């Protein structure tokens, strides 16, 4: 029995990656939930919005790297974020102007907007591949680790190592900052409150003199920022591939729904619930159990509950269970 080593192994393989992934999902789910709350539909193009924004960041990063600009130990991509957000914002605002606004003026049922967002998804997907190609792009630079497994072992003398990659640390810090700013904005500023009001009761918001077009504009700006940040963090942590971003749609939707669509707090909670479940259930527990159990009981197999490819199944099962128990999600009633 070796509790410390087990804890370190658990942190290294489960907690740290799940926290990073959870933050990325939470940021993605926040974007989905904001659009759901204010524009009233689930945006199928959100994964591709993330991909497009990240592409903007990557292009800006390459340009900065070409100029020889660097942030030292931090990835240059952080410096390129504003440029990526701006590019993404320009895209979504143009889309809103050319595509969505027409349907809003017609006051179509929201499900039509869902179908429209499928068309937008195709276009974004095509655009991203058109510009940067369908392949893997790596754009992380700076130092790779905050603590490497080797240093950790040397420092503590433990058998297990704990590695924290720079990208993971940055993910968590950035996510906290972004979420803090978002909540401050929604709960403390006049524009943020007007967004919540509009989400809560469209007619009454109109009667109060809130301009819906302005609310929509601000929403798209925030969504562009959230999507770009989420996509960039995911790309730094793993890698950038347009198709992977499209596939993130399921866990992101699952996070938003588990938390309760329309609820920002729910989106964050949902993101972490989905991430932790995915990682724990697809992690091979042999190592951790090996430390915890007496030698005679040590498992022979990998003790992996499900193969990594089944991670979608995990999101899905959690989703079904939550819907069965609490159909409105964990945090209901708190509109945007």
């Amino acid at each position: 029995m070796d509790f410390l080593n087990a804890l370190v192994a658990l942190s290294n393989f489960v907690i740290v990656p799940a926290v990073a992934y959870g933050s990325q999902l939470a940021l993605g789910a926040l974007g989905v939930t904001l659009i759901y709350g204010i524009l009233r539909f689930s945006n199928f193009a959100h994964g591709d919005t993330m991909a497009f924004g990240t592409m903007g960041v990557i292009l800006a990063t390459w340009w900065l790297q070409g100029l020889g600009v660097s942030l030292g130990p931090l990835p240059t991509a952080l410096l390129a974020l504003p440029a990526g957000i701006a590019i993404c914002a320009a895209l979504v605002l143009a889309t809103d102007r050319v595509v969505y606004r027409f349907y809003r003026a017609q006051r179509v049922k929201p499900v039509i907007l869902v179908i429209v967002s499928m068309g937008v998804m195709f276009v974004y997907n095509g655009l991203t591949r058109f510009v940067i190609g369908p392949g893997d792009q790596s754009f992380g630079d700076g130092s790779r680790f905050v603590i490497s497994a080797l240093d950790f072992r040397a420092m503590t003398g433990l058998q297990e190592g704990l590695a924290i990659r720079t990208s993971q640390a940055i993910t968590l810090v950035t996510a906290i900052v972004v979420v803090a700013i978002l909540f401050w904005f929604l709960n403390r500023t006049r524009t943020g409150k007007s967004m919540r009001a509009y989400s809560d009761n469209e007619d009454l918001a109109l009667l109060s003199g809130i301009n819906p077009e302005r609310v929509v504009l601000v929403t798209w700006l925030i969504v562009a920022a959230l999507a770009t940040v989420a996509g960039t963090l995911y790309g730094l942590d793993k890698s950038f591939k347009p198709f992977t971003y499209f596939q993130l749609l399921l866990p992101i939707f699952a996070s938003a729904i588990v938390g309760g669509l329309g609820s920002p707090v729910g989106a964050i909670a949902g993101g972490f619930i989905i991430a932790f479940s995915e990682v724990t259930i697809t992690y091979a527990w042999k190592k951790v159990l090996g430390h915890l159990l007496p030698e005679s009981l040590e498992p022979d197999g990998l003790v992996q509950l499900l193969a990594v490819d089944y991670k979608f199944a995990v999101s899905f099962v959690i989703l079904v269970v939550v819907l069965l128990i609490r159909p409105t999600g964990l945090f209901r009633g708190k509109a945007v």
Partner: protein
Amino acid sequence: MSERIHSGAGGTDRARTVLLFVLVAVLILGTGFVQSWNTALVILNMGLVSAIMSLGVNMQWGFAGLFNVGVMGFVALGGLAAVLVGMPPVPEAWAAGGPRIIGALLLSAGVIALAVTLYKRMTPGRLRAFLVFAVVVVGFFVYRGLLDPAKEAVESVDPAATGYLGGLGLPIVLAWPVGGLLAAGAAWVIGKVALGLRSDYLAIATLGIAEIVIAILKNEDWLSRGVKNVIGLPRPVPYEVDLQQDPAFVERAASLGMDPATASSITVKLGYSAFFTVVLVIILIAAQLALNSPWGRMMRAIRDNETAAEAMGKDVTGRHLQIFILGSALLGLAGAMMTTLDGQLTPASYQPLRFTFLIWVMVIVGGSGNNFGAVLGGFLVWWLWVQVEPIGQGVMSLVTAGMAEDSAVRDHLMDSVAHMRLLTMGVVMLLMLRFAPRGLLPER
């Protein structure tokens, strides 16, 4: 027949339908004349399959407003059926662990049934939650304990060639209805869960299940050989090689002025076309009859005013479940046909954009709620999907004509042609939604 099918259609409606289908014929024949007859037939055959898929989605969306974004999963289940029915069994693998795998599957079904029964019979509370949870967890570990060794044994039987249980070795055409049944079974489970709740949660449920089906196909090697693919599925039509060795066939080809290779390949494809056309026509007639039957009228009544239908004592959820299962069965059927046409099951080739969202483009372009529209959309969009690349290539060549041979921009643009497809589909869909939201053949 056509009188009945068109009953209620105005003259202009019919003229429009005929005209648009003539356009499809012209496009396909044109492909034959300009490119090659082989290409034209490839498009026609996949067009027929796409038309059936499109009919399936149209049933669900057009007639009941059910939002299925897991088309890919049902299509893939059909593909699995083709393997399970058509491929010969692998006796060594069965001997190694077949019964045990079947046992494990039966056990898992039993566990789920027990959990569901507990959930339904017991009064809500902690005890129920605990018991259901315990049954599922214990059941899962017992299932894995049973399955894993058998799975390993089966997968180690000549992994390069088999490594799976194989199928039943029955005529592959039987796989088509079986594919439909498999998809219908999955749809029943999904529908029970997602439509039976207080609200409707179908979209996310189908989105999830589709990914899970693909994950199973990719991972459960004992079942579908996973990413090693199953190749060489039996065919309902003769092989080209056999035809080329048949003197009578060679002679007939020569009399038509064709070389045996081309003639054989075209003959084979025509064979598929004949099979698929028969299936499509049967389904289309059945769908039209159903649409105009009391059942179809009730479906539309529910769709147009659910509250009123419910007040009149109609079982809305039950009807929705019915039509969801029916539509999914069509998707499974089409999936089995497609895998038969390909002659192989390649799980990695199932992509949501191609197998879910493209079908939606077909329905939107054709006309939601109109069976003929769905078929038309299937053909038109499929034709476009195939032809965007050559057309894009031509356009790009024109655009880049003035650039230097070694220009990086030119290279990039030429490479990007491959991605024009998605962009084009998106633009087509958005233009349709904006300017002809009811599709080319609107619902009457």
